[in-house]
């Protein structure tokens, strides 16, 4: 089945540059997936297939890598991907409460996406910001030293942004 998607010429240039930075093509898979994610918006079946064919890596291997990491945007992820760190420091500083608060406010459990498609909630492992626990990552931004009020505020702000984005 021919792929109907492909990298834009700018991304392709970056990909070719990446290849010069790694000893083998397979080794460049992680950053290439990053490129694919930013070029295509998410990593679904056609996107993974495209990367596999481009890099001449078995599609199953790419699938395994994409699902291993929590930080790739898989197909069906909401506009805002809220990843709450649940590893030790954050857990000790109340990450469970952060998760419950988000669940309460958005009506979704970890692993779920709101029906409107705006939010996906995940519990993830240490995000390397233990000194500012508890913390979460929303898309590419960190939100640290969270109190439950901070969580409420963040959600309101994101909601406004999502809805505003829809109208505008």
């Amino acid at each position: 089945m021919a792929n109907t998607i492909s990298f834009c010429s700018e991304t392709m240039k970056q990909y070719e540059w990446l290849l010069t930075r790694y000893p083998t093509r397979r080794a460049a898979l992680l950053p290439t997936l990053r490129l694919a994610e930013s070029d295509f918006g998410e990593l679904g079946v056609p996107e993974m297939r495209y990367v596999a064919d481009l890099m001449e890596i078995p599609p199953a291997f790419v699938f395994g890598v994409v699902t291993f990491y929590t930080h790739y945007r898989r197909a069906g992820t909401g506009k805002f991907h809220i990843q709450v760190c649940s590893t030790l420091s954050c857990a000790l500083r109340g990450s469970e409460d952060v998760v419950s608060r988000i669940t309460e406010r958005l009506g979704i459990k970890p692993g779920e996406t709101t029906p409107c498609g705006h939010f996906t909630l995940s519990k993830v492992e240490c995000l390397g910001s233990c000194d500012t626990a508890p913390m979460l990552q929303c898309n590419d931004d960190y939100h640290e030293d969270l109190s439950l009020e901070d969580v409420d505020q963040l959600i309101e702000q994101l909601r406004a942004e999502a809805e505003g984005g829809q109208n505008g």
Partner: protein
Amino acid sequence: MAENQTNDGTVAMTSWQLNGQEVENPTGMTIMEAAKEHGIEIPCFCYHPGLSIAGNCRICMVESNRSRKPVISCSEKIADGLEIETESELAVSSRNSVMEFQLINHPLDCPVCDKAGECTLQDHSYEHGPDRSRFVEDKNIRHTKELGPNISIWGNRCIVCTRCIRFCDEISGTSELCIVERGDRSVVDVFPEIPIDNQLAGNTVDICPVGALISHDFKYEARVWNMDRKDSVCGGCSRGCNVEVETLDGFVKRLMPRENLEVNDWWMCDEGRYGWRHLYADDRLSQATRDGTALADDSATAALEQLLSESGPVAFLIDPFLTCEEMHLVQGLAASRPGSSVGGWLPEDGIAANFPSGFKISAAKYPNRAGAEHIFGDQVFGNDATELQKALVSSDFNTVVAFCGGHLSSGPGESWAKALSSTPTSIIFSVKSGPWLEGASLVLPATAPIEKDGTWINEDGRLQRTRSCWNPGTEPFSVELVRLQTLQNALGIRGRSLSAAGIFRELAANNDSFAGHNHSDLGSPGLLLSERPAGIAMDGGSE
């Protein structure tokens, strides 16, 4: 393994200590392999001799004087001065802990699991595992789904050893499988819409140490401890993969490969594996017929004797599914009827396949062409066959005896069917019904390859012993072997019936190609026809 070759060509040895004993093994061996040579079997899950070392299950940990922590014996190599303990407190407690860890999320499925009875997890759990669980949390749930046309995964049972994945990467070279997710959610899967559907896929089920990969063919079919097993050889192609045929209450349930490093390593192809279903196909013959009317077994034997005792020269049409022993009996019959001739038919070639691991599937979809050529001459499927066909078409023979075996083959082609029907008296041994039986005088049901008892010679010239999946004395245990001898007895050219081994002795005494060989020396890897069993002096010249 060039690693242990010294300059003078001998094998370099390493001295080390195993459980307090000074021992020696060839340099470069892993602790696990070396310990096995001294009778100590270290448990393993992810290690498989045919695959690369993954070292992920940790059950094989042993105590080493070179490390504060226990080391994994499947990847750690022996070294001079190394001291290994496999039964020390540290080694035993490491094993026990790994077992407890492996069982945390494992379901109590054994009573309904097809692997039970031959499951490595069950075995190791019995030997090394705790008898109760300290885990009070909920066990996690992973997917149960079809991964391909013949295989499903019971994800909850997967211990993520990656054997199946390494198989698809290294042996079949098809790479359909991967582990998705991570941590305790890890499980084997395929890429969406790319099922595991390669010619060797069935092997992944065999090497799965637990009941995670299940073959649709065998699902809920039998408990493994109730089955009878026979060491057979697959007749699907001229490789002759060594197989174990498992039967339950007189029905074949499953074929599994048997290790033979000279032929098939630990593997077999799916066509051969699932081919046994043809034994029970609707077109399988089970009834003898005389001019179209059904005959009881005794009357069939009598009819065969009568037809042949009255005959002059006989034409014999053989197939490449017959064992060397059966062929020897045919040759005896031909020799007793002056003016007889022998030719053979070959099924059409299939497609050959070569895999990255060196595993091969042959295009020649039959097991014993080489045997026939050693017994009847190298033109038996060539010129002799052409001549025989011509003679039959012009009715030069009054009687023909034809063998139409091979439950997977499409049978002799149209021109042979025509040749057979032009002969006034045609006696046909056939596994299944087909156009070649048109107008036959006597039809005798024949055996499929795995029902035969005897030897075949594969495409490398390797003589291999195949055993019938049935027990001697029960039909259809090697029917032709029995029937041809009964016939020879009746015709007065044989004194008494022998086993396949006895017939082989006659063959070896009469045919230089086989001289020096006998059944008991073939062992499980078989022998090249050119390599005589040790200790038998050959009077030169024949090789």
